[in-house]
């Protein structure tokens, strides 16, 4: 399953947490499902809910499917709290959402973005971040019943968020962080050697980061695959890169999606429609091919502004499934979720 939030615009009251199920045999995605709404969350948590935000879904080793998603009762994203619900029948039915208690300050300012880590003792490690006063990352320990039982701090201050945590073995893991400061403009990394209890001070690594989200998974040869906008500015190219566990050697694997303009300059609406129409037909799959005309008719302010129309490929979410396949989903020009999958054989050919 993949999940995302969708509505008239980010932060609108009509935003819902939606998902879809992937049929691996047919290589097609099923119908869009509504998993949570503002109203259902309000009813379950018995709190006023103003809007919903980032969702994260992951399958635990015991086949329990966990969904974590952000809700806001007051203010902007800085007022966020994380809700959780689970399914024991692979998403057919879901438990009632519960709100996690993560901070002593009105339980606000905790957001989720990237995949959790399932520990051998049954606890879940959930990488989260804060956006109230500062921007910093933390690692929550959640019990198998969904209660926060501990936390550790990955970073501090005002310039790092949206950690993606890659376990390398039972004790060691690497966190990579989106950089929101004005100095490095590079991805930040931090390490733990005690299963997430303590983390090293984040340090800038080679790839550039234009204050955009990234996602990473481990490869069988003890390396990492990272999906990111390796750019100083803009999100017009989403690149897959490979690195070793020391994070010193970086190698581009493939550009997953990119603007035809190498600088990411905007296009006129007419030229944009033609290009994005072709891109849509290439990646829609046969089932959604018929949506192309409706899509082109409804191109709106999400992609076109006064200066022109932009290509944006962002917010990757990356997993390696139990069968060894890599699955990557990302936001495709703010209108669709695109899914890319590949295996180790394909990866070896690219390197």
């Amino acid at each position, binding site marked *: 399953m993949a999940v995302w939030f969708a509505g008239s615009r980010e932060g609108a009251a009509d935003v819902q947490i939606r998902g879809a199920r992937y049929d691996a045999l047919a290589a097609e995605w099923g119908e869009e499902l509504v998993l949570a709404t503002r109203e259902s969350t309000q009813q379950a948590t018995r709190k*006023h809910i103003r809007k919903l935000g980032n969702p994260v879904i992951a399958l635990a080793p015991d086949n329990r499917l966990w969904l974590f998603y952000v809700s806001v009762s007051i203010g902007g994203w800085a007022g966020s709290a994380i809700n959780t619900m689970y399914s024991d029948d692979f998403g057919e039915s879901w438990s009632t959402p519960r709100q996690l208690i993560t901070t*002593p300050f009105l339980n606000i300012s905790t957001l989720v973005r990237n995949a959790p880590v399932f520990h051998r003792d049954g606890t879940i490690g959930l990488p989260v971040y*804060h956006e109230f*006063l*500062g921007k910093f990352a*933390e690692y929550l320990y959640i019990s198998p019943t969904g209660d926060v039982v*501990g*936390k550790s701090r990955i970073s501090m*201050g005002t310039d790092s968020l949206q950690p993606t945590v890659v376990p390398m073995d039972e004790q060691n893991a690497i966190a990579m962080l989106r950089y929101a400061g004005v100095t490095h403009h590079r991805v930040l990394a931090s390490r733990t050697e005690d299963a997430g209890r303590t983390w090293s001070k984040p340090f800038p690594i080679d790839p550039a980061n234009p204050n955009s989200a990234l996602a990473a998974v481990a490869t069988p040869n003890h390396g990492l695959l990272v999906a990111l906008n390796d750019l100083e500015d803009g999100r017009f190219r989403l690149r897959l890169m490979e690195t070793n566990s020391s994070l010193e050697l970086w190698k581009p694997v493939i550009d997953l999606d990119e603007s035809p303009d190498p600088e990411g300059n905007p296009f006129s609406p007419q030229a944009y429609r033609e290009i994005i129409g072709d891109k849509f037909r290439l990646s829609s799959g046969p089932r959604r091919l018929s949506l192309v005309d409706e899509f082109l008719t409804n191109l709106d302010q999400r992609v076109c502004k006064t200066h022109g129309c932009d290509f944006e490929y962002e917010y990757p979410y990356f997993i390696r499934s139990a069968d060894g396949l890599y699955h990557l989903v990302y936001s495709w020009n703010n209108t669709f979720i695109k899914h890319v999958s590949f295996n180790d054989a394909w990866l070896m050919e690219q390197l």
Partner: protein
Amino acid sequence: MPGLWQAHLTFALFAFVVLPGFGLGRLAQGLVLLLLLAVSFVSVDGLSLAAYMRSFTEDVAITTLVALAFFAALRMGLLDAPSHSARVQLLIVMAALALFLYPATMGLSHLDPYQLGYDPRPLIVTVGVLAFGLLLLKNWQGVSMLGLATLAFSLGLKPSPNYWDYLLDPFIALFSCAALIGYAVRVVARKATKASQQLNQPTSL
């Protein structure tokens, strides 16, 4: 009510404390408190008023709840006002706990003291020592605030498994710090006034 017992109680006590007393007698004040408790159940768009308040305040700390109950009891004439020194002692304890917790937990430090609340034995011992100190000083309000917070934690009366959430919330933290600063300003101003009065007095040779 059971799930939101604290929200209803907080709503009723808070409204009772902030509303004027109108010179009502003890019985009438008790009825007002019950009326406010009933009002907390009034539903608007499927949520009770208490639930709306909780949406913005979260479940307040047990110390705040005890403090509100204490103010309500004072209003109703059920308790005597604590001495000035007892008030200052309690403000110092709560402000010290708040200053230890909040700046670091809001991202100013790589160490987050909120973590201590998940495995809280050292913290419980520290709070026990503070409570014992207040007991020796016969500061009954302070002892009951810290003692009941610890008791509520051991009984798991709040949804949070973190001890800090029983001890502190931003309201009691800000109130304690602001009241302590106000007290310090008054003391300094008083001393300054006294000093200037002494300077202005005629001196005999």
